[in-house]
């Protein structure tokens, strides 16, 4: 328990993504839950191994798209039907085929903006300060650093046991992460 105050968790750094994966499988097998892994590039399937569920990003994008399309189309319809009806080239006031194009662009815009900001929000980013940066050997500078973090609030968290375990798994560095 006292660990939680003085440290954020224990970090192990591997050279190979495969080594990291093996470590993850082992710890999950042992029943660890408060895990996080850090890789310089996406490693397929690792997230699922860490218990990742499908996110709500697609839903956000869908909503954004619908809202974008609807609002532009509404503006078009309202402006020509209600606000200032004008006979333009003898065309009908409600020329919906023409209105679709700006509305479509609005939909795309809304969708992709929600994509970016939704992703950041769900990732709780931006987060300039994070304890993991405190680990001296944590770095995205090179693409041969694959880190595994066991957070100290994990019920099974035990510094000494973990160190041994990581050493067995062939970690190049094992560090305690200050909060």
């Amino acid at each position, binding site marked *: 328990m006292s660990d939680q105050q003085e440290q954020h968790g224990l970090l192990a750094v591997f050279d190979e993504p495969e080594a990291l994966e093996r470590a993850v499988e082992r710890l999950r097998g042992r029943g660890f839950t408060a895990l996080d892994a850090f890789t310089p590039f996406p*490693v397929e399937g690792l997230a699922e191994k860490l218990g990742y569920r499908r996110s709500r990003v697609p839903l956000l994008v869908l909503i954004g798209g619908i809202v974008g399309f609807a609002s532009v189309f509404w503006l078009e319809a309202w402006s020509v039907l209600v606000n*200032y009806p004008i006979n333009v080239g003898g065309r009908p006031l409600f020329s919906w085929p023409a209105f679709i*194009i700006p509305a479509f*662009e609005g939909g*795309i815009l809304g969708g992709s903006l929600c994509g970016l900001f939704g992703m950041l929000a769900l990732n709780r980013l*931006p987060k300039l300060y994070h304890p993991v940066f405190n680990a001296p050997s944590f770095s*995205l500078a090179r*693409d041969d650093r694959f880190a595994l973090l066991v957070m100290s609030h994990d019920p099974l968290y035990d510094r000494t046991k973990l160190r041994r375990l990581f050493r067995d798994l062939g970690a190049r560095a094992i560090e305690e992460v200050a909060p």
Partner: protein
Amino acid sequence: MASDIRADGEAAGLIEGRPSYGDLSREIAGVSLGTRRPRFFWLGFAFFFLLALLFLFSVTWLLAIGIGTLGLNIPLAWGVPITNTVWWIGIGHAGTLISAILLLLRQKWRNSINRFAEAMTLFAASIAGLFPILHLGRPWFAYWLLPLPVTHMPWPQWRSPLTWDFFAIATYLTVSLVFWYMGLIPDLATFRDRAKSRGQQIVYGVLALGWRGSVFHWARYEEAYYLVAALATPLVVSVHSVISLDFTVAITPGYHSTIFPPYFVAGALYSGFAMVLTIAVPLRSAFRLENVITEKHLDNGAKVMLASGAIVAYAYVNEAFYAWYSGDEVHRYAMWARAFGPYAPTFWVMIAANIGSLVPLSFGAVRRRPWVLFAIALVINLGMWLERYIIVVSSLARDYLPSTWDTTTPTWTDYGLIFGSIGLFFALMFLLVRLLPLITIYEVAELAHEEEAEAAP
């Protein structure tokens, strides 16, 4: 297609000499962060910067004197500015295609060129967006195209293709920016951790938004990235289609043709990939990135050019055929005048450049010879500009009432705008190379990892 690339990935790999982890990012980041900076870099930058100044001067002159300084009249009320818009937008499209569509198609070979292709999109689209505003009679009222709740005006006229353009280009710019920035975040993090000076650390740090490469983040990140790519794909098709509607919706003979949307999109890819190669070939040799931007990349790029170029050629034939098949004497004459009228020389140069280039491109040997490709790419860039010029101008020169027929020629202001915008574009590219990773580090790394994995067993 995906599979076979990976298959011969062995022979002419997408990453050659399979470097160990770490080297790649050092190599790529070195271009920006490192001290490797050849002298010609500065020379080149200076040259294009001067051209950019010419652009600034031409624009100032244009705004001061009025649109009358351009080679325009009635009936030829559109000319070089609109031509430039279409041309630049087209160039931009290649970027989005590479980054979005090839991503969805899992085309691994895109990885090492998509970053600067996206940047290319941003710059090209921004420049393209400038011209419609500059060529307004009263540019200071350009904001009237926005739906603003002010006291003195009705709303935009939603039936006008120009309004559509406005929305399409604005959206395209924003989405390209979003997509580009998303792709940049992990690399910015890499830069943050590589940066030596405190200043660089802070700048890149803030821009990286505290990215720490958490596996969970990666998962959501990739979901979002693919979704935006999925949105950008219909967008890129729609943008150039909308641009083509400027012409298609008009009843002017030579404009009024339903094949324009696909024809314009194909043309966009054609010129866009030409521009990609125009940049990629010097770039790889300048910064010795031959093992990242391999001949395989150039070859694939050339293949796309070959395909889209063939479609363009087909569209030329089609256009002429429809004009004849319509039985409409005015449209027939407009097509005839295009080839044998006042702008015939331009037309034939255009044909030679765009269709002629397909012949060498169809030979693998040529496609794998970088500097030959470079030369062909330049020719195609020219040809595609001329194509837009022919469409915009020659159609107007011979329309319905013979008494109104007229011609016009570009003035020095026109040329200032053309070459100035090119200068601006490349000057920006140089700056980008200086400041940001011009190749997606994490993707290349991922690719390298996969290739190793495959080579392992």
